[in-house]
């Protein structure tokens, strides 16, 4: 079963609004895989949220996790 990733804001210009990736074990692994598939992402500023919490250290992922890529917020 693949890992589903939802994407927001300016990042959707590169990846679209959702992705499915196989064999992703943790968030570091996810970022490496994303940079390989979408070289334009490598230069972009964003954080990874797992189950609606921003993660700041490498975090193990399971297929049940809701993973999201969040570029800088610009609401209001």
């Amino acid at each position, binding site marked *: 079963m693949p890992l589903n990733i939802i994407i927001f804001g300016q990042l959707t210009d590169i990846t679209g609004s959702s992705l499915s990736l196989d064999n992703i074990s943790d968030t570091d692994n996810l970022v490496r895989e994303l940079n390989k598939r979408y070289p334009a992402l490598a230069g972009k500023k964003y954080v990874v949220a797992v189950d609606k919490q921003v993660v700041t250290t490498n975090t193990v992922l399971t297929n049940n996790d809701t993973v999201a890529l969040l570029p800088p917020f610009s609401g*209001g």
Partner: protein
Amino acid sequence: MKERKLKNIFVHGPVAASFIADSIQKHSIKTEIGGHSIFLGQVRADTIDGKKVASIEYTAYEEMALEKMHAIREGMFAKYDLICMHVYHSLGIVRAGEISLFVFTSSVHRKAAINACEETVERLKAELPVWGKELFEDETWQWKKNN
């Protein structure tokens, strides 16, 4: 402290002046209130490289934004002596001159409402996963950056 449930803050399209008036009017039955503080964010027709912003299209990671907003709200009620707090943010298209953010706080004495309103605006701009896309009059666009 009473528990507050997750409240929806998102409205589709602009926040209407009549909606703001209704919100104010509803508080007339809360006769312990002495002061209300309101912040309204209005979409600016900025000119960037000679092109004028016609509207902003807002999107959000709604589930996460509502959880974050809940945490901000709980923090405000813990920190300030508030009676009420209401927040509304637009999703979708909001044209220049229209309102995209409405923050409304009320308290017995004015300071709590004023401070909580200002702090809530700062926090939600920094913490809510919401994005604006500035749509120019010539139909090109760019992603909004908050300062």
